[in-house]
């Protein structure tokens, strides 16, 4: 089942940032979202993940199928790496976390408290969470921040393995991941001033 976005207009802080956005994400496909800072990449990804509502347009095939990874990793410092992953596995109805530990080489760190990890190690843990969710659509916002070259390689491998099982991914990133991916440049969809009238319901919030 593909993810379709039709005529989407989204706003950040009540001001429309992207308008008339259309794309389709097929099974086994990666779409790289590009655009300058403040162009609405994060807002787009949060909207697809269901964390924000759109002003107009529709998103088809996203409900309950999306695993989102944003700027914050959602890691509890006082739980071990294993406990963090087990928690998310149980929330998403799974239980096996060895595949996730394998994918990001986290076995040596499994019993360390997550609060003692370095920034890059935390990010690897945050990305390993995607593997245990079992969701077919990954929506990732700058996933490679603070990762070294080896870890970026691990991440690219994990995405490839995810695609082989029929999954798909929507990734906002500025670096080349070495993936066979199409690029979605959001700058042509920048909202013009005329779209401001669409934000009228903000008065009630």
């Amino acid at each position, binding site marked *: 089942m593909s993810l379709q976005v039709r005529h989407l207009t989204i706003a950040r802080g009540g001001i429309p940032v992207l308008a008339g956005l259309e794309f389709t994400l097929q099974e086994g496909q990666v779409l790289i979202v590009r655009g300058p800072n403040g162009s609405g990449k994060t807002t787009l990804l949060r909207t697809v*993940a*269901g*964390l*924000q*509502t759109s002003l107009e347009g529709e998103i088809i095939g996203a409900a*309950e199928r*999306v*695993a*989102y990874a*944003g*700027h*914050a*990793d*959602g*890691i*509890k*410092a*006082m*739980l071990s790496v294993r*406990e963090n992953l*087990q*928690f*998310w596995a*149980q*929330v*998403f*109805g799974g239980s096996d976390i060895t595949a996730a530990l394998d994918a990001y080489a986290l076995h040596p760190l499994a019993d360390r408290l997550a609060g003692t990890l370095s920034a890059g190690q935390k990010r690897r843990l945050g990305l390993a*969470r995607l593997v245990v*969710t079992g969701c077919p659509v990954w929506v990732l916002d700058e996933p490679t921040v603070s990762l070294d070259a080896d870890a970026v390689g691990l991440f690219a491998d994990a995405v490839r393995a995810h695609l082989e099982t029929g999954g798909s991914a929507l990734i906002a990133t500025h670096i080349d991941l070495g993936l066979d991916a199409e690029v979605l440049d959001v700058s042509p969809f920048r909202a013009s001033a005329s779209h401001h009238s669409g934000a009228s319901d903000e008065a009630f*919030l």
Partner: protein
Amino acid sequence: MIALLLRDLRLAFRAGGGFGLGLAFFLIVTTLVPFSVGPEAVLLGNIAPGVLWLGALLACLLSLDRLLALDYEDGTLDLLVTAPLPLEAVVSIKALAHWVTTGLPLVLAAPFFGVLLNLPTAGYGPLVQSLALGTPALSVIGTFGAALTVGIKRGGLLLSLLVLPLYVPTLIFGAEAARRGASGLDTSTPLIMLAGITFGTIALMPFASAAVLRMGLR
């Protein structure tokens, strides 16, 4: 959902989780009262039910601002919203975890603190009963307040201002039951009212909490 409850309890018991904070606060309030009103045993016995209830209520309030704010700051809340759990269930579990780590210890400790305030012998049973029936409402209403202030920096004070007026009915009937018990009167009417308030809030508040949380994260 059980995983979420276990995780919250585990976090509360580990260092920095704030477990025991409410209990220590409750103890300090009940020891300060005799210093402020003077060492008159009869007067202390008269005001003990009300003071114990007020202390328990304030102790509950103390840990509320950590309830959702910590999960918001590290991004867990965003991920929970996108997880296949109903948000109503998430906030209910959060309230339950708050009650187990804050309300339940207060209920169990209240008889010991009653000794400090010379609570009449007949009052212990009704005090524990009223606290056991009333404190779940404090946690559930508090979760609503925490959801309302989740995105706000330093929202703790605002949270207190919003939540304390909503605590008034629980306090009135809870303290009334404890006071009647201490004077040897029948406590069934205030206890039934208290139970009604608690079950009503448990049934309805999660929907309000989930709704404001969705709005706050937008």
